[in-house]
């Protein structure tokens, strides 16, 4: 008995639709799993700010180009949170002293 061409077409379309949905769902699951894996294996990544590069003094030969996932973790434990902040000047500059006293800043 010859099959109904319309029924055959509908059946084929349903099969294609199922395959497409499963492939999409599979891709979502795979992407999620990879993201979770990456988050666990590559924690605390921080990109240096652009401004820091602009302030550099000509680059550093000792710093290799960053490989994926090898940037240093610059986030501090709670309480520090300094990231890659630049060195900060004092609120006010020192003023001249009188030359004496028990406290001396020097090499140690």
């Amino acid at each position, binding site marked *: 008995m010859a099959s109904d061409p319309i029924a055959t077409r509908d059946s084929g379309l349903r099969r294609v639709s199922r395959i497409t949905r499963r492939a999409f769902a599979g891709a979502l699951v795979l992407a999620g799993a990879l993201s979770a894996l990456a988050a666990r294996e590559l*924690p*605390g990544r921080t990109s*240096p700010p652009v401004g*820091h590069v602009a*302030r*550099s*003094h000509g*680059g*550093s*030969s*000792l*710093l*290799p180009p*960053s490989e994926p996932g*090898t*940037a*240093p*973790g*610059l*986030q*501090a*434990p709670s*309480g*520090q949170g*300094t*990231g*890659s*902040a*630049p*060195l*900060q*000047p*004092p*609120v*006010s*500059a*020192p*003023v*001249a*002293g*009188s*030359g*004496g*006293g*028990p*406290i*001396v*800043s*020097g*090499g*140690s």
Partner: protein
Amino acid sequence: MEELPHAMFPVFGTGAVVATVDPEGLDPAVATVRRVCEEFDAACSGFRTDSDVEKVNRCAGTWVAAGSLVLAALSEALRVAAATDGDVDPTVGSAVHRLGYDRDFAAVPADGPAVIGIEPVPGYARVRIDRQRRRARIPAGVRLDLGATAKALAADRAAAAAASAAGCGALVSLGGDVAVEGPPPAGGWEVGLADWHGDSAPGRSVRIRSGGLATSSTTVRSWRRGGDRVHHIVDPRTGRSALEVWRTVSVAAATCVDANAASTAAVIRGERAPAWLEELELPAMLVRTDGSIVRTAGWPAEVAA
């Protein structure tokens, strides 16, 4: 300036000075500073096999759980490394050992054979911190040296804790790395400046009201290897002691950590240091090996002799 109540005691193979505005606050301040220093020594000492940083060094190449204090010090060391474009790098540990500074300085032989195998240090960019899991990882073959940054961080934290315990302004100097916290005495905190922090007659001094003041010197922790003089400030790009353009560099900054980082980086940068310090608006006094002085960013020109 009227001399303030103060106490001195040995710490980190060097000396500590604690001063308070109120005499009643000195004892609790000293007790607090001692406790903070003991905690830092246990966490960050490169000369104690049981310290947290030595545990990280022994486990180079793998993630290792680490205490919050060594993670904080390492995080600051990485920030400082980035802020100084790699001049002050915590991965100089092996280079410093190779030069002969592998034990408390008092026990380092004054002379020895020539150093071989000198090379650039691995670089801070390869150090990783996992904040969530409280662990760190350094590449195999790398050795951390948190010495300078950890000492300055200890001074910052000790000063904050001391001021709180004393209920008044407090100053803490750890081997010449000075941090102050709280209301200063009238006129500010007087700090002498010298090649060596133990100098009893420094001749020069400044007064600060907040933040930190640090001096790096190439003249104090120095020794000889193969007939050549070497010192403890290592240029990460060469693995050798930094060239001696400056005998001392003193820097004032918002914190002792930043002051220490800037003074150390300035020694390593040599002739490029004054322009860099000016750009960062960091007041500094740089003393050349011939004794001539360069000042930056508002460092007072007239200091009493």
